């Protein structure tokens, strides 16, 4: 055991035991971030803040929420929204936050794709990020069921029904997930457990992994430049702050993030107080009724693109039913982003617009995802069904083509 000399201050007492000085250096003041970044690099901190906001508002909701088929609706819409002091505020923050967090996740994710931040050593950052995306999706989906409104019920019904398409085990799997033959009280209580315990814990774990995965490859920058971080850090510490290519996480990087956060929160609170319908669907203020199917069933906006890929295949091709094709395409759509680092065969780490072929691919993908999202909400009738089919096919073709496009690009730029 090390020698402990008498501490002169409380700070020193703790420092002796916890190594605060060292910890702060490693985590904050000597954690180096490239200087050449724009506000898109603030999205990660925004996400951390949003998750904290969801966690805190969720804990407040949890104090009054009742996970019971007969009580859930009123516990949310009457007890929380009308009786508990500022209960409505926590609900609005939680529901709008859950929706806005996905907007930021998508921006974060496509920033990564645009700047090629998923390859050449950054594969694990990307994969842990995708894991967070999946976990947040599960969190959003399970949470949406809790108020037990019409859309809670029917979206849960439709989405759980999807698993029924899996060969052989499908039927049993659906019953296993629901805990009953239909969406019922047992479904609500298990989704409640997932939403407030298991998934949040997994998210916390995944966040730690995500942050740790960032440590060694370091954050990417606006030009995709690779440089010697140790050398640049020494330069900074030696006083050449302007000449160094890096800045410390605290206070320099975070000061910029707080500024971005401030304006983001302004937007977030505007939505929370004055424009929340997009996140709290009016239909969900009708209590769940298993005998009354709503005229239009749609998931929340952030699931629409993959939902449209599922619906896009509405007719049989080569003896395979539309339903099965849709399911296969849906499974691919949800998994394909995980292997992004290996589908991109070009060694270039550059913003997409500086890459001769990838730039077209990127903007095509964005356009296609927007079309999928919009048509994912519209009723799938007439021409809409065909738009859905074409845009779903486009999505698949884009990913099949990606290795070839990037291979050709690698050849053109000659391994740069």
């Amino acid at each position, binding site marked *: 055991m090390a020698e402990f000399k008498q501490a002169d201050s409380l700070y020193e007492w703790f420092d002796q035991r916890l190594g605060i000085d060292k910890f702060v250096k490693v985590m904050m003041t000597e954690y180096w971030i490239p*200087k050449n970044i*724009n*506000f*898109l690099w603030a999205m990660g901190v925004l996400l951390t803040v949003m998750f904290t906001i969801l966690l805190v508002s969720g804990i407040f909701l949890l104090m009054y929420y009742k996970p019971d088929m007969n009580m859930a609706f*009123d516990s949310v*819409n*009457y007890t929380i*929204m*009308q009786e508990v002091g500022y209960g*409505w*505020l926590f609900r*609005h923050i939680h529901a709008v936050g859950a929706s806005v967090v996905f*907007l930021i996740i998508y*921006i974060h994710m496509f920033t990564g794709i645009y700047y090629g931040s998923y390859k050449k050593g950054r594969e694990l950052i990307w994969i842990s990020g995708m894991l967070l995306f999946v976990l947040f999706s599960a969190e959003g989906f399970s949470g949406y069921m809790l108020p037990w409104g019409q859309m809670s019920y029917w979206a849960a019904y439709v989405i759980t029904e999807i698993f029924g398409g899996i060969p052989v085990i499908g039927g049993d799997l659906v019953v296993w997930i629901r805990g009953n033959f239909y969406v019922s009280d047992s479904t609500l209580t298990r989704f409640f457990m997932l939403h407030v315990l298991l998934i949040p814990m997994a998210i916390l774990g995944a966040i730690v992994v995500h942050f740790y995965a960032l440590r060694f490859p370091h954050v990417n920058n606006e030009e995709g430049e690779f440089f010697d971080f140790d050398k640049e850090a020494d330069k900074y510490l030696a006083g050449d*702050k*302007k000449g*160094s290519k890096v*800045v410390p996480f605290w*206070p*320099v990087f975070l*000061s*910029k993030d*707080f*500024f971005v*956060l*401030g*304006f983001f*929160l*302004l937007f977030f*609170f*505007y939505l*929370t*107080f*004055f424009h929340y*319908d*997009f996140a709290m669907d*009016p*239909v*969900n*203020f*009708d*209590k769940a009724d298993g005998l009354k199917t709503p*005229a*239009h069933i749609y998931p929340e*906006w952030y699931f*629409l693109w993959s939902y449209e890929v599922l619906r896009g295949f509405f007719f049989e091709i080569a003896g395979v039913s539309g339903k099965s094709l849709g399911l296969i395409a849906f499974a691919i759509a949800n998994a394909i982003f995980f292997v992004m680092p290996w589908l991109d065969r070009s060694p270039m780490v550059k913003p997409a617009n500086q890459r001769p072929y990838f730039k077209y691919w990127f903007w095509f993908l*964005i356009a296609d995802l*927007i079309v999928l*999202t*919009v048509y994912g*909400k*519209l*009723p799938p009738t007439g021409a809409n069904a065909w738009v859905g089919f074409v845009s779903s096919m486009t999505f698949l073709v884009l990913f099949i083509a990606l290795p070839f496009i990037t291979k050709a690009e690698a050849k053109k730029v000659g391994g740069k």
Partner: protein
Amino acid sequence: MKELKILAVIATLVGITYYGIEPYAHHVMHPEVKAADFTFSDLKNVDTKLAGNVTNGQVLVEANCIACHAIEKAGHPAMMPNADAAASYGVVPPDLSHAGRMYDKNYLANFIFDPVSAMHLSHKYPVGGTKTFPMPSYNWMTGQEIMDVVAYLQSISPKVKEGSEANKASFEAACGRCHSMKYGQLEATTPVDTIKTYMGATPPDLSQYIKSRGEHYLHGFINDPQVLLAGTSMPRVGLNEKAQEEVIAYMEETGDRKKAEREATGINVMIYTFIFAMLAYLWKRKIWSEVH
């Protein structure tokens, strides 16, 4: 500025997506329907220009209406308890104290002449069908007599204080025989089983309908349910514009009770957030001036 360009690109993409999944999708799923008609111009059986005679109206009402309807404000209590009235007629006939104040004059006159056509329920009670509407048609009365009844009902209608009190009174009188309002501690006067048998559908509890349907929909729906929900058993109730606004206001008071608090808090939170954002901006400027 490069960062502003990036922001503009993101704002454009988000804006297009938002437009597609909100206003545009809404427009596709809920096409615009014909505007509310508060003159009830389709009803033309009674000449409403005739000036009514209140005294004669009172005689007619006492002879014809109070057998079924209470008119508390004129000293006529209900003939039987609600449960019995519901059992006899299928639905508890509403107290008519507020009728003169709430119902459009043209609608009221034509309703007395022929309730089924005024309520737009001919699909449920076709001429010569087996089902008969519980309230008789007074098509044997002359136009003058009907206008006398209307004039009498208008004359006894109490002056209620505008605001919450009037809002609630209108809701109870116009909707309360069928619909409950749990969050306002109001229970429908007709027991739920009876009303279901009578209507063929359960009138929903309206506590959250201001949120699930929204003011715009309610405005059209209450004026004429058939336009938005063809074939529904909910009758057209014939409220004048003012009474209808009171009903909707009551639905908002009970269904979205914290609206005022929300809007006031919202402004304050945004002001504080703006101050935070500005301070963060100044701090960032200071810090980054050392490294750039």
